[in-house]
């Protein structure tokens, strides 16, 4: 029950903050503008947070750094990075990444 409550709180909270960000300037008075300095600082936010989300999924195995051939997620991740670089297509990256994950699992 405690877990369910926490999950409900998470979902409601994430919904609330995401909505407030969408609403922000639509509800603020017209004279309030977004400073250019803030817009500049936002440049590195997506790349930093997204990488912090995916890099450990590739580099760590059960919480330990695993730069070995039996780390199929690392190898499949490298292939996926290559596909993303060449094609810039999210769907191709997902499909090729998943196929190679199973391929490397099978090979090594």
């Amino acid at each position: 029950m405690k877990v369910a409550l926490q999950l409900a709180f998470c979902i409601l909270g994430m919904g609330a903050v995401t909505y407030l960000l969408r609403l922000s300037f639509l509800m603020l008075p017209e004279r309030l503008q977004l400073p250019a300095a803030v817009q500049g600082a936002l440049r590195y936010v997506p790349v930093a947070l997204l990488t912090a989300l995916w890099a450990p999924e590739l580099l760590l195995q059960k919480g330990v750094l695993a730069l070995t051939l039996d780390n199929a997620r690392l190898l499949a991740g490298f292939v996926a990075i290559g596909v993303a670089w060449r094609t810039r297509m999210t769907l191709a990256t997902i499909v090729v990444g998943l196929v190679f994950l199973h391929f490397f699992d099978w090979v090594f």
Partner: protein
Amino acid sequence: MPLLVGVVPFGLVTGVTMVAAGLSPLAAMAMSILVYAGATMLAAAQLLADSAPVLVLLLVAVVLNLRLVLYSASIRQHFAGLTAGERALAAYLLGDNTYAQSIVHFSQDSTHGLGDARAKLWYFFGISMPMWTVWQASVGAGIVLGARIPTGWQLEFAAPLVFIAATVPLLRDRAMAIAAASAAATAVLAHGLPFKLSLPLAAAAGILAGALAGRRPGPAAA
């Protein structure tokens, strides 16, 4: 129209991946309706599987969606004079696709007036309401599908793959690459910290390193 078709596979993948990461179908659907932001939903599912605390999840939702503030600030001038209720509904439907398509249309005619704002609002609803419907239906179908797929397929790995696909096109210059490398190194080194603190720490390190590297004549970054 092509935008609507394009959103279907992403909705499906998001639904399947949320369930594969261990979220219950009900929680996944609730998240889709309440949060209505694909990357945030995938990050949440991945982090919940890691039993990250609520505060870290909220922080991630804020940082991942900061761009929505930019959309909000940019589209506001076109909705001037509309009622609070109309703007509140428009805000809920504001996303990457709906913003991009509307702003292109709005910037083609620059007349200002309340009648004009209402016409723009209806154009925005005409784009964003079908988008919402198709997205929710695709996520729902993905959730149903995901519940039938065995865990051996490791579909939860689709979440980091989506993040990789979103990151790689951003690595256009040296500062961006430094931001990514610093975030990755910090996330791995700080992995042992409790409460998934490694994540906000790694994001902060990446942003700082990128900003330092991006300053043209500046001294070498620490």
